């Protein structure tokens, strides 16, 4: 009897062990990962994860480093918001960025339209405003959906670290009769953006109205010599 109980206990223990081992295999996606390693080499896997020209575009950066034997740290501008990508081609012997050469990833053109995020009480937030302020020069236009008024009152706010909305500027903007947009031409440099949140308050629009802003790019490719190009990724000087 004792032996049977002991054997049952042992069997249960092995069964639990088996279940946990299976759980670990499943949790780590073992078979899928094993196949991935067997099928693709490291650089192919890196390209699959980070993209060639798209997302972090590490594939393109590694290609440039190899082809042009880049031994400096060129400035990298990524128009898709990710963590810095310079780690993939970083040269520790170079103290500073090479200011003459740029790598531009996911270039969107001279201007982009971004939808503002409704916050509360007619406040709209330009999400990732600090990131945008590093790549774009100014907010050129505002487009408000289904808003027919010939002018709009806009207040610009910055949220400080104590969570207070501090008004920076008050504007009355007239509608452009051709484009039906509200030209604001507000330069980011006017505010010390740092990591603060940036808001626009519209005083005479309906709640939850969709609002877009057009941002003007700091970098115009026409001003640079293109050394290498793949889709919308560029190596310029």
């Amino acid at each position, binding site marked *: 009897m004792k032996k049977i109980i002991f054997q049952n206990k*042992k069997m249960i*223990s*092995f069964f*639990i*062990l088996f279940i*946990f*081992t299976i*759980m*670990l*295999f499943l*949790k*780590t*996606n*073992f078979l*899928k*990962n*094993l196949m*991935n*390693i*067997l099928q693709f080499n*490291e650089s192919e*896997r*890196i390209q699959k*994860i*980070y993209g060639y020209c798209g997302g972090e575009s590490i594939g393109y950066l590694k290609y440039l480093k190899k082809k042009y034997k880049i031994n400096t740290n060129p400035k990298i501008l990524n128009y898709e918001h990710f*963590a*810095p*990508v*310079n*780690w993939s081609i*970083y*040269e*520790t*012997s170079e*103290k500073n960025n090479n200011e003459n050469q740029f790598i531009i990833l996911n270039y969107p053109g001279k201007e982009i339209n971004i939808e503002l995020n409704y916050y509360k009480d007619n406040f709209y937030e330009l999400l990732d405003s600090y990131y945008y302020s590093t790549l774009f020069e100014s907010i050129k236009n505002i487009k408000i959906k289904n808003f027919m008024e010939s002018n709009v009152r806009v207040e610009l706010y910055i*949220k400080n*670290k*104590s*969570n*207070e909305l501090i008004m920076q500027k008050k504007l009355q903007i007239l509608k452009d009769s051709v484009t039906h947009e509200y030209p604001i031409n507000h330069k980011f440099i006017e505010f010390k953006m740092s*990591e*603060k*949140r940036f808001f626009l308050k519209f005083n005479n629009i309906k709640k939850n109205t969709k609002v877009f802003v057009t941002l003007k790019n700091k970098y115009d490719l026409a001003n640079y010599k293109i050394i290498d190009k793949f889709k919308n990724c560029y190596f310029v000087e």
Partner: protein
Amino acid sequence: MFEIIQIFYMFGVFFLFCVAPLNIFKVNTDNLYFNLVINLNLLLFFSILPLQISKYAIYILIVLFFLGIRNYYSFKGKINIDKYRIALIILIFFIISVQVASELELGWDAKWFWHIKSLYYTQNNTFSDLSNYVYNDFHPHLGSFLWAFFRSFSINGHEYTGRLFYIFYYIISIHFISNNIFKDKVQNTILFIFLIVLTQKYIYFSGLQEILIFTTLIFISKFTLIFISKKKLIYLFLITLCMNLLIWFKAEGIAYAMICFLVINLSMKLKITFRIIFNLLFVSFILFKSLIYNFFQIKINDQPYYLEYLLNLDLETIIYKFYNILIYLSYNNLKNIILFLVPIIIVLNYKKIFKEEYLRLIFIFFTLNIIFIFSAYMFREMEVVFALKTTIDRIVFSSSGFYLVFLIIHAKKYLKI
């Protein structure tokens, strides 16, 4: 296929750091864990020297190899190595390593600075060259150094091979706390795999340093438990060595080391000589770091924490911050489960707090840990919700390592296994 073989080869390299200087073939197989802690401290010393990794790494490995061989042949008794256990560690290491080798993606902070700091060593620079890196003052360098050091043994030089050491360190620590809880080997194995399933996530091995803090706290917790029962100075010495590693892994490490320092001084019954040695050792480690930082003109903990900032806050903001920290901390404690269970067990055993040394120690550590988490966000000059959203899960995870042993002991008691 080559990468698969390389994973096993890297395990062999890592394991050499467990086979010497102490003899692991003796009856006390805990020497394996002691060796790892001792060798990491030696590597810390090497990381500061004005020597390139390529000049000494291979010699360290050769010395360890021969010391291991000497240990094996010098021991005359029955060799006390459990092959089954080693095979299990290799299996778990292999499973997690395959995930790291396949997924490859680095965490945000790893891309931001940890990997770049490791590149300084990989590209044949030394500790003094790190000062050229603009974000060097944010955090210490040891984790990045280990990444580069072990990468130097890799045959193809792939970046992730250095990170495999983090897996090894983590697995060894989990094994340390689960290898002798039950009399039955199978039950210990179940516990070992269960803990791995509970605590393992790819993100922890993505070059972020929290796993190193988590693992080192596991070691400290277990050494403390052993010290309470055996009262041998060697364990107190090992605790201090672990605390030394903490202060070199990450800026927060200094807070955890200070908490350990306070907890051991306040809650443990120590002989006066032990207390003096422990305090002197810890103070000398802190002084050593200060001297090194002073010499290389590195700011200690260049983080956005200011008392002035807190004093200038109005009551409404303080309440706003406090409320958000409470909400996010509670949610993350629930998600992490370890930090959620600890206060429950403490409350259930509140009568024993003044009687049981380990329970008292956990209680004080937990209290100080919560105070630390609150003050880290209260003093931080940063938008609190953004800071909480991006970091609190990692802070909760890194500190939870200290409670694992405590939870195992109590789970065993409550479940009557």
